[in-house]
């Protein structure tokens, strides 16, 4: 079966070691994580984890079921088949001289990215968007020399849905 990128959203109890349990499970079962992003959710004491896994639908379904067995995982859904909004934030530090600075700023503008730091030999750009958009900008910036990249990994949400509908997605 063809491997594709799947977006899993897990709502987990905010307990010590919960992330360790999840990541350990991926390693133990031989599943690869593309990216993982963790933060607070709309409910107190619950965190939201967005995990991008590359694999066949059957494999990802097995991942989802195994994650769901963890006591601290309240619910987990594969939202890949849904209409979702997915975003990632990146910070990119690019080499910049007086000769190249304006060209770099122009590229950042095209991508609606922000310049967040300016130094004598570099510019730091903040960009938000889906992976493709970030990848395209990085491609254009490579020629100038990229000193550092920090990417958050994808966070995602079903369009227009309430958390309760996430639950339904889980039961499908």
């Amino acid at each position, binding site marked *: 079966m063809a491997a594709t990128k799947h977006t899993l959203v897990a709502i987990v109890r905010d307990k010590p070691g919960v992330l*360790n*349990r999840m990541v*350990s499970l991926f390693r*133990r079962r031989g599943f690869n994580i593309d990216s993982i992003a963790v933060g607070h959710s709309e409910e107190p004491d619950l965190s939201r984890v967005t995990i991008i896994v590359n694999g066949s639908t059957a494999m990802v*379904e*097995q991942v989802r079921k*195994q994650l769901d067995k963890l006591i601290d995982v309240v619910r987990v859904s594969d939202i890949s088949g849904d209409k979702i909004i997915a975003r990632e934030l990146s910070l990119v530090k690019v080499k910049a001289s007086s000769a190249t600075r304006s060209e770099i700023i122009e590229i950042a503008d095209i991508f609606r990215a922000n310049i967040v730091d300016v130094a004598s030999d570099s510019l730091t750009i903040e960009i938000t968007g889906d992976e493709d958009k970030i990848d395209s900008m990085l491609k254009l910036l490579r020629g100038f020399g990229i000193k550092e990249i920090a990417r958050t990994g994808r966070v995602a949400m079903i369009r227009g849905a309430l958390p309760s509908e996430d639950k339904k997605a889980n039961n499908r």
Partner: protein
Amino acid sequence: MKKTGAQIICESLIAEGVEVIFGFPGGVLLPFYDTLPQYPQLRHILVRHEQAAAHAADGYARATGKVGVCIATSGPGATNLVTGIANAFMDSVPMIALTGQVATPFIGKDAFQEIDITGITLPITKHSYLVTDPGELASVFKEAFYIARTGRPGPVLIDLPRDVQIEQAEYAVPAGEVKLAGYKIPARGHPTQMKNAAKLINEAHRPLIIAGRGVIISGASDELKKLAETAQVPVVTTLLGIGCFPGDHVLSYGMAGMHGSGYANKAIDNTDLLIAVGMRFDDRVTGKIGAFAPHAKIIHVDLDPAEIGKNIRVDVPIVGDVKAVLQTLHKMVEVGQHLEWLQQLDDWRRQHPMLGVREGTGLLPQYIINNLYEATRGQAVVVTGVGQHQMWTAQHYIFREPRNFISSGGLGTMGFGLPAAAGAKVGRPDRTVWLVDGDGSFQMTIQELATLVQDKIAVKIAVMNNGYLGMVRQWQELFYGKRYVATPLSCPDFVKVAEAYCIPGLRVTRREEVAGAIQQAMDHDGPFLIDFMVEPEENVFPMVPPGASVAEFIEAPKKEVSTWPRRNTP
């Protein structure tokens, strides 16, 4: 009312109905052990190695269906539990493993005997806790027992720092049900899938039930029997499913899998509907997965949704408690009749007899197991180690009830036998408990003979002594050109070893002595050891070679087999 952490631990154990703890003390557990005498209703059994504490709790749990409890100190005590916890995890055994931990200010400082045991056991526990506040103990224990015993059971570890045992906290028995947002126990199967399953069962020509340990855990033996009898579906079991369906039932066709009966494996190869109940398609059951049950639609009933579709594609997935599902299914199926299919199975049973013992004078393990079955009238709890003796016991002792065959399946832990037998006997004191062990397996936890003596645990021990690590030797014989590397095994004089522990023993070298020795062991009030000097190079047959389909089993040379005279053959 204020109590110390150690007192709360004991109170919590009692509140959960615990009667016995298998353990071994140590520095950081001193507050707990010092408190224990205040609670005489908690029996503590001192093992000689922490691994045995976990196996004993495991054997106790399998024999009784209750949660087994073991305790070990921090550091090496805790790491010694690991094999036992992993064993319980693989076989879904309800267990609470308590570990001492260094005092909270020392955690993370590489203190003396500090180890990250919750980290180490992460992939082999159903859940784990590191308690840092004595005020949390009562709720943690309640939650831990609930998690260990409900749903698909498993081991739960609670790490108990020294200061948490000493400090005081308000204690009251936690009220109400345990509520865990992320913990779901599927109750009964989806109605549509149940309908689909019933339809398939009613339409099948060659249906077959394969039943696993889930039937035992769920207490669904009666429901399984009713369904099989009503729909006239023959039943085979996995290794751990042994006893979930009466082995002498007319619809019973024994164990399937690598060392399963030829007719059970032929049944799998020919069935048009496989009803898998409380089992997880382990590779030792399926053989080559692509060639497993090639003509069959598969109904898979399991409590754990993650087991469905994990190893094999199924046609009808039913997630639910086996007992509830079978009860409902029984009401939905029609009275069946599969005379031709059952006739075919009986023919295969005649062509590939299972219970035969080779003629001649050699002392064969199969002969001994047959005798053990006769002597105990099939009523004993039989515990095994891991290896050839385990398979011979599974094949030749006929179990009629659940929880009478206790064996390490998923992990295949040599050394499981003796401590597990001790735990089983403690849990079922009114039953005769036999340990059938191999000379290799037995030596891995032989020190537990002392536990039997100190705590007066009357386990009867039959060692199948062939001077080899027999199962590995068998593979070397069959698949590695008879190069017996690291399998010839020198053993101590087991009778003398037993004697050193004040356990009487006998050595048996001839068939004629078998029945008498077993009787003598049973008549003795207390533990007893028989060292059976069996044929050194006897093999376990049938055998499905690794990587082969279950239909391609190798059999024992036919001409040498005679049928055991006192057995019911169809």
